[in-house]
């Protein structure tokens, strides 16, 4: 893989649910070590974009690649997906952190984090658990190894889900509004963890409504509205000096 190849390249993405066109030609390339924040009004297609990028939803049109792996290619205006094995390889390249965590409620924190490395990646259990312990430490969850999700706060659960994604060594991590289910003080601890990852040059795409956070961590801010990228650039360009009227309207609305 050449260093210039994007970690993820989504090109010309279109997605409709019935008559409703949710993505109307979105292209997004993410370079290694880059942090991209996606902002925009509710219903603008942010979640759908992440779901298409993580293969939870199928594109109608457009292509999707992770480095040298082509997960989906555009063939005369229709998306054709690769075979199962190739998609499995593609899945090993990314992780996804959900808004509502989606931890496995019947498993301990340790099991939530270390199980996929063992069962999916066939790594030795001792090694996977050792690494999980390090991640637990790093997420500020020491002592929670043997707890189950219902014994944790929302902020702790979200940090477990970040650790669960990191345990598989993804090249890129997607976050879909990771703090919007949390109280302000719990939000802060989750954002702190994500900032740590940004400082380590983890490649990330983060859907967020936290403008201060976006300004702080994002190398690039993308404003998505009506299924299209209306404006993108540095945080300074998009958040502080938006050029488009729709961006301005959105920013002034959430500033209220």
């Amino acid at each position: 893989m050449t260093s210039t190849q994007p970690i993820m390249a989504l090109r010309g993405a279109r997605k409709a649910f019935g008559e409703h066109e949710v993505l109307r030609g979105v292209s997004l390339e993410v370079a290694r070590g880059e942090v991209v924040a996606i902002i925009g009004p509710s219903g603008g297609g942010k979640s759908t974009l992440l779901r298409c990028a993580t293969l939870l939803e199928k594109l109608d049109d457009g292509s999707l690649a992770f480095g040298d792996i082509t997960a989906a290619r555009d063939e005369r205006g229709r998306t054709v997906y690769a075979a199962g094995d190739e998609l499995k390889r593609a899945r090993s390249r990314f992780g996804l952190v959900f808004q509502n965590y989606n931890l496995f409620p019947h498993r301990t924190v340790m099991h939530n984090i270390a199980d996929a490395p063992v069962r999916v990646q066939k790594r030795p259990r001792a090694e996977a658990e050792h690494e999980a312990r390090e991640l637990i430490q790093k997420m500020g969850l020491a002592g929670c190894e043997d707890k189950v999700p219902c014994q944790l706060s929302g902020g702790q659960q979200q940090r477990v889900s970040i650790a669960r994604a990191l345990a598989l060594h993804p090249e890129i991590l997607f976050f879909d509004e990771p703090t919007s289910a949390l109280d302000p003080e719990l939000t802060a601890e989750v954002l702190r963890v994500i900032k740590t990852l940004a400082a380590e040059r983890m490649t990330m795409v983060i859907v967020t409504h936290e403008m201060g956070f976006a300004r702080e961590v994002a190398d690039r801010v993308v404003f998505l509205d009506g299924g299209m990228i209306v404006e993108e650039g540095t945080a300074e360009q998009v958040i502080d000096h938006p050029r488009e009227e729709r961006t301005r309207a959105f920013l002034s609305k959430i500033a209220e």
Partner: protein
Amino acid sequence: MSFSVMLGMLTEGFLVSLQIFFFTIAGAVPLGVVVALGRMSRVAPLRWIVRIYISIMRGTPLMLQMFAIYFAPYYLFGIQLTPDSKWQATITAFIVNYAAYFAEIYRSGLQSIPRGQYEAAEVLGYSRAQTFCYIVLPQVVKRILPAMGNEIITLVKDTSLAFSIGVAEMFSTAKALVASQVSMVPFAIAAVFYWVFNFLVELVLAAAEKKLSYYHD
């Protein structure tokens, strides 16, 4: 007739009731999975056939189903009924009847698992079989346990329906003894047997529920 002789005869009958019980569990628990999968199949005709099957099983008396299954081979294919036919018909009827109830319980349990669980598993790279075995199934078991407990307790009592077709389980024995001894004691003993056994069933179910109470969602 002494009490101990009566007790011995009823115990013998109870062993037959237990056989009906365990054969039904052994057959209907797995068959219910197949029925539930059919009920949730993407193939519409299969889904409808299974739906009608479940509707008939739940909508008609188990006693009638036993007779239908008992006489069907003779009326449909002219096959002679043998002394074993009653027993076979009883077990078959119990299994296909209870499989329908279990299937609906499984289905409700499966459908109650949030989609996010499947999606998290998919993104983590679990195969469909792994997702089912390690993530979905354990959660389904916890959710369906109370409903399954109800059905299992009902099954213990339903074994007495085999009396109607002439299988010598405990209730038939009790009824025969009541008639010959002109005493209600055999019925009382039978009641104690059913209740004590169900009490044990309740203990097992409570233990299982307790074991799974380490988490809630």
